[in-house]
């Protein structure tokens, strides 16, 4: 007990609130793969447009489906997709950033020019280009956003590797004849984690916003997969009659994004101390 209390006192408020908010989201996301309060597909004409109540926490939609269950499923899809996007882009970031940052040279120069060019553009536009070439669908959303978000990770990892490559302890390791691969991933990589986690949480945010935006536009996740963006665009037609239908997925997106940004702010402040 004492240890837990001490741990809590050591953390800053941003980190704790962010952790609580994202924690709830992650629990709901995992839970949604096994269980939702109601079936997400069963329709009922007698239960159309019920306002939020204890029976239906977020109310029901135009088909009489329970919105809370569908939001849960949407969170599951969104979190799964965003995790894969972050995995792809941060993986590419670590590999490419480590090599270009540590070795430099002409490859570094070329990669930097490309990332500069990509970074300058609004990510949704680039993703749209990739989608229009590959076609819409879940896999293509993951792949296109994974590609689009890689450059920002590459830049961050690269600059950290450049900062550390001439540090004394790395020089010493090199003199001792440690293999290059080991220097890169055993000696340097663990030391960039504090910066890396901040960019992972920001990456999560961007991935969630981009994914739900594309689903809203109808070129992202396709039915029958539930997605928060798609729900919001469906709900827009019933805004006058059932405002809670639009509020539920919308506020959920805001909650998730806010949670991750508080978390990243918290991690950043911890790193500064």
């Amino acid at each position, binding site marked *: 007990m004492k240890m837990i209390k001490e741990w809590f006192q050591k953390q800053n408020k941003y980190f704790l609130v962010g952790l609580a908010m994202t924690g709830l989201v992650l629990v709901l996301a995992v839970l949604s793969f096994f269980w939702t309060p109601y079936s997400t597909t069963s329709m009922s004409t007698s239960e159309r447009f019920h306002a939020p109540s204890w029976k239906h926490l977020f109310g029901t939609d135009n088909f009489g489906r329970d919105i809370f269950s569908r939001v849960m499923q949407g969170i599951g899809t969104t979190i799964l997709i965003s995790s894969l996007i972050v995995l792809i882009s941060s993986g590419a970031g670590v590999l490419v950033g480590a090599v270009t940052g540590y070795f430099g040279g002409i490859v570094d120069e070329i990669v930097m020019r490309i990332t500069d060019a990509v970074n300058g553009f609004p990510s949704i536009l680039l993703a749209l280009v990739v989608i229009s070439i590959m076609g819409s669908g879940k896999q293509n959303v993951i792949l296109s956003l994974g590609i689009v978000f890689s450059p920002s990770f590459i830049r961050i990892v690269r600059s950290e590797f450049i900062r550390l490559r001439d540090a004394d302890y790395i020089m010493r390791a090199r003199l001792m004849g440690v293999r290059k691969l080991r220097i890169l991933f055993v000696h340097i990589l663990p030391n960039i984690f504090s910066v890396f986690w901040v960019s992972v949480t920001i990456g999560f945010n961007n991935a969630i916003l981009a994914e739900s935006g594309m689903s*809203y536009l109808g070129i992202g996740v396709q039915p029958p997969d539930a997605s928060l963006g798609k729900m919001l665009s469906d709900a827009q037609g019933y805004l006058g009659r059932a405002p809670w239908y639009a509020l539920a997925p919308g506020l959920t997106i805001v909650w998730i994004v806010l949670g991750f940004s508080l978390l990243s702010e918290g991690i950043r402040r911890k790193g500064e101390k």
Partner: protein
Amino acid sequence: MKYLAKKIMTLIMTLFLVSVLAFFAFQIIPGDAVLSILGTEGTPEREAALREELGLNKPPIVRYFTWAGNVLKGDFGRSYRYSKNMNQMMPVAELIGDKLPVTLTLAVLSMMIIIVVAIPLGVFWARCKNRVLDVTINMGTQTAMAIPSFFLGVLITYLFGIALKWFSPGKYVSYQKDFWGFVRYLLFPAISVAIPKIAMTARFLRNSMLTEMHSDYVRTAYSKGASERRVAYGHALRNAMMPVVTFLGMIIAEIVAGSIVVEQVFSLPGIGKLLISSISTRDFPVVEILILYITFVVIFVYFLVDILYRVIDPRISTK
């Protein structure tokens, strides 16, 4: 001058690269445009004739140069999906022509709202000593940045459109018919584009101001007896605005992209809506031109910001 020439050269090179990418990216897609246009009415003769007409029987490199040459001359090609009349395909230029003013007006309106609100807010926040107010603005901007623009659009539609009835959602007013009605309708999409950017700009300006307020010249200004107000607006703001100019430049690029989504929310017949529908119907000549156009706007804005930056602050070396 040498710097300007170099910048212009880079600008042209980038545009060339983008045009090559935009053109060839759409050549590798599986599927034959001719077959998809003709659909079930295709006969080998009609296919060959259409292929000839669209120049699709030539090798890609030749087609690129024909296409690029035509674009430079102002001929943007023809849409695969929209037709002008029974046997004529709609020129892309005409298709884009009447949608451009919508997107441009939206962008200009949003930018105006951002500048008018964000700059006073940022300065006020930097000078604010009331802790409660400080925390409130902090939380407010943090939340505003977490709201996706399309949800903000839906909220604004509900609040101003359905609850307060200040505008009728979905009833777009054409600028040819009633210009002020058009601006009035666009005001609400512009607000949805602007709010998250206002939060970002205000936060950025505040940090920039706080850094400036600790510098030597501010202390000197105070010791001369200048009032706090005068120091903030007359001395610190001008210097604090430097990085904000670059930031606002980047925001323009974001507005252009953000309007793609917001146009969909308010069903505005602009460039973004055309882009989305062209992507869904795989109308590639339109997509190519739109990508080229948006890229051009983004690159050109960055170019202008770069130049402007050096005009405002001659200290920046032109190396």
